[in-house]
């Protein structure tokens, strides 16, 4: 029989093990999410990330090695974004009717996301590179990284802040909007997309197709608006 350590080092190098681990961790997360009556605190992304982090830590595997295997799953973010065209197309009559509410919700949601984050961080003495990395935190990751690079931020820190924002937003959106008594699925989804990008959109699709479609629009529009306002917001805080 071959040395188990040799088998392990063979498997740990290839994509098979990490791809399988990613899918299994997600399935466990999704099961727990279903078992928790689809409550938003049992976010499947958060559970899967936690399980995989535990696995990487206990086997002493670095993130680079893991990502080489898991990048096939990561790649699917692109086609899934294109696929958002279908719910948007199906909801087009609704979208046309909601032009004014969307413009207003976008300006306020996007502006508040950038300015309040910068204001709070600045108050705690955070400046320079870190503040610049925080500015686009509500924007979808590829755009956020592009914005951060242009205004002097750090790409990896930006990606981390973007993901934390998305997971937190996906967890709070349902209880928060229930508390505020917002019953309009369009408003609920749109705000989730503007403030919590793709992870907020994934949450919206778990709950309602119309909310998901509007969340996708919110995410796309916020990406454009944040690219425009982030440099000015940063200047406002003297950076």
């Amino acid at each position, binding site marked *: 029989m071959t040395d188990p350590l040799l088998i392990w080092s063979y498997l740990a190098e290839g994509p098979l093990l990490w791809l399988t681990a990613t899918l299994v961790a997600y399935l466990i997360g999704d099961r727990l999410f279903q078992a928790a009556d689809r409550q938003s605190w049992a976010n499947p992304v958060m559970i899967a990330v936690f399980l995989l982090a535990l696995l*990487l830590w206990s086997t002493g595997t670095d993130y680079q090695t893991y990502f080489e295997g898991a990048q096939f799953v990561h790649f699917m973010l692109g086609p899934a974004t294109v696929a958002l065209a279908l719910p948007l*197309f199906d909801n087009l009559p609704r979208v046309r009717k909601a032009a004014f509410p969307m413009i207003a919700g976008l300006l306020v949601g996007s502006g508040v996301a950038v300015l309040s984050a910068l204001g709070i961080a600045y108050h705690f003495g955070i400046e320079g590179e870190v503040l610049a990395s925080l500015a686009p935190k509500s924007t979808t990751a590829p755009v956020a990284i592009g914005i951060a690079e242009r205004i002097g931020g750090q790409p990896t820190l930006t990606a981390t802040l973007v993901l934390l924002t998305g997971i937190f937003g996906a967890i709070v959106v349902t209880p928060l909007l229930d508390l505020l008594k917002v*019953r309009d699925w369009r408003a609920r989804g749109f705000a989730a997309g503007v403030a919590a990008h793709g992870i907020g959109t994934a949450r919206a699709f778990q709950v309602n197709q119309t909310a998901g479609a509007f969340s996708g629009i919110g995410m796309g529009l916020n990406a454009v608006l944040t690219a425009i306002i982030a440099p000015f917001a940063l200047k406002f805080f003297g950076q």
Partner: protein
Amino acid sequence: MIISLAIILIFQLTGELLSRLLDLPLPGPVVGLCLLICACLMRPALADKLRPVTQGLLSHLSLFFVPAGVGVIAHLGVIRDYGIGLALAICVSTVLAIGSGALVFAAVARWTGADDPSAMKERSDD
């Protein structure tokens, strides 16, 4: 299924090319999304053809964020260094942005008569 996937990838590829050629502020997949909506408007049959695959992709949208999410753990050190300020900035501003965005959307929908009774959450829903 393979045809649908190929069509989606072709739209993503075209979006990526346009985004880079024209130096657009939008990433390739988002440009691809816009192109696909236009294509569906011109040929509604395309939407029916793609729907099974797009529904499959979107019902597990969360899965695709997992690999990047694991990267958060790798960078948690940075978050710890800036501690409470960064954590508060993320949490408070996300709550404020979702709350204000949704309230303003709903208020403007009422003022402009853009209410949509078919898009209201039932009180008994999740």
